[in-house]
């Protein structure tokens, strides 16, 4: 089992332990405003070389502007003959890598493109819940709400993703995808038929992502895109709601929940890499 650590800023290298990790993930999954600059990447590469760990470059969802920045980073990595894996979270970035850097990098399909069902309430949906009473406000009539758990097919469907499709796997193989990055979703995983290598992230599962950054700022009242003061680098939010049975974390453009890894399930699901995220990965 390969163990990797995901850092998105230089200062997070403090979490790195040479004896524990064999791979370093560097970069951002969710926000193009936080694509690392080349100088930081250079420093990280030096750090990885010094500690003899493998290197993965994580890329986010991008517009054409973000893609230009990524292209610069890819060119830099190729120019410096860096042996590198790239985690792709945008079909455009995948297309660019295929067209302009054909087969130079090893590619992995990122969490945003794997499209698992990430609703934190999913466990409640799938498991039998006790009935409860509900009073009609107008008539005062009390009804009993009974939860009817879904059938086997549905249970399976909520744990699966479209990457279970052999057709998609064949298609992705043509682009050079070799690995899938998976969320450790609360309802469990159904990975039957997946031929790619698999990584699992712990402990954070991304729920929803937006470009209307909801972090607090002077401009919060306006829906804002590209109005980034990098508030997410200073703080994040813990959020509670009556309808969601767990703590939700909001950092930058993305919300998350925490789900600890069941190590026993890894072998069963033939997962060969754990990606540890020491800090909330949002941005």
């Amino acid at each position, binding site marked *: 089992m390969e163990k990797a650590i995901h850092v998105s800023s230089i200062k997070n290298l403090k979490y790195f332990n040479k004896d524990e990790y064999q791979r370093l993930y560097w970069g951002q999954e969710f926000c193009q405003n936080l694509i690392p600059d080349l100088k930081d990447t250079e420093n990280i590469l030096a750090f990885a070389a010094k500690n003899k760990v493998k290197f993965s470059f994580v890329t986010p969802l991008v517009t054409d502007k973000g893609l230009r920045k990524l292209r610069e980073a890819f060119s830099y990595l190729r120019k410096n003959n860096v042996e590198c894996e790239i985690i792709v979270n945008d079909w455009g970035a995948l297309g660019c890598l295929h067209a302009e850097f054909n087969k130079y990098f090893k590619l992995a399909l990122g969490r945003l493109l794997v499209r698992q069902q990430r609703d934190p309430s999913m466990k409640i949906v799938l498991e039998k819940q006790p009935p409860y009473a509900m009073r009609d406000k107008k008539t005062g009539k009390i009804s009993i709400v009974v939860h009817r758990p879904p059938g086997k097919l549905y249970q399976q469907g909520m744990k699966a993703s479209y990457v279970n*499709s052999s057709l998609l796997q064949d298609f992705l193989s043509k682009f050079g995808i070799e690995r899938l990055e998976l969320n450790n979703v609360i309802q469990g995983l159904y990975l039957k038929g997946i031929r790619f290598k698999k990584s699992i992230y712990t402990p954070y599962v991304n729920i929803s992502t937006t470009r209307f950054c909801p972090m607090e700022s002077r401009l919060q009242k306006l829906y804002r895109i590209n109005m980034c003061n990098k508030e997410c*680098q200073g703080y994040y939010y813990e959020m*509670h709601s009556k309808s969601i049975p767990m703590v939700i974390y909001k950092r930058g453009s993305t*919300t998350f929940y925490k789900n600890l890894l069941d190590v026993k399930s890894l072998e069963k699901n033939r997962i060969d890499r754990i990606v540890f995220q020491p800090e909330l990965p949002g941005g």
Partner: protein
Amino acid sequence: MKIKAPVINKEEAMRLCEIGVDELFCGIEPSYWRKRYKCFSISQRPAFANFTGLSELKKAIDIAHRHKTKVHVAVNAFFYLEKQYDMAERIIEDVLNIGADGVIVADAVLLLKLNKELLKGKDIIVGCDAVVFNSYAVKFYKDLGATRIVLPRSMTISEMEETIRQDVSMEYEAFIIHDLCFFEDGLCASCKEASGSIGLRKSKEGDEKVSLFTGPIISKPILMRGYLGGCRDIFQQQKISVKEGRKISRIKNFSFWGKKHIQGCGACAIHDFKKMGMASLKILDRRLPIEEKAKAVMFIKKCSDLLLKGAIDKESYIKECKVLFRKTFKTRCDLYDCYYPYGKSNTCFKY
């Protein structure tokens, strides 16, 4: 620029065609899908927001065609199970055979599977759930056979312009009014995965409410408050310092939706859309009452017509749009509702 509106039955199709809509879009959940996969939504909407049979859809298509209006059918779940693809493909074949002018899809696998012969001459529209933010992503879907891309609502005007400029042979569609979502459609697990409804089942002891699986059902406390969950919830949030790992504020209420339910309007941007060659403007929300849909179509049509009169500068156009908005919806347009907002003193924030 075409105006596209949602429709859920033939009566709505008739009404919208009469007021001059150019394209209609709808979903369908035929009986053979419901019978086999009743828990799964085929197009991310509950059953009542879809046509339930091909015969009803055919009547709507015939009405539309009499008015020279196109009909696009959404089969746009994020993804289907391996077994479901064949049925989704069959549904697409059926709707095309009864005269639909195109399909809206979001899943690359479905695009790969579709019979390209059958789709010849039809519109293959990649919906916003496919999350196409850049020109390479456009190319990715074009290579899979797409003829039109729906650009996500959270792209700025200049980002849209840049993407469109790089491939003008492709058609593009933008959201124009209603249903302004906070999260990115294709990257959101907040409501579409947790959509559901309560049904009433008669039992010997009296009425019993049963959670129905139009999509994944919603959890108990959401039902009790009548919410559909997700981003519309009121959260209690507390700020945590990244550096120190400690709480640095008191607990405050927070909702992604701000103070009110956001409807969304981007009529001011039509001036720019026309310049950049946007093919279609999409009015959203299949579940809206027909009166609201008709009102939205007429409003967008009037806004578009302002540009037909000849050269009108952007500032004047926006002023006139705002007047029209107020006349139509009996309220001022609000920055909270703005798809493509301008900041103070009309300096656009997103340009």
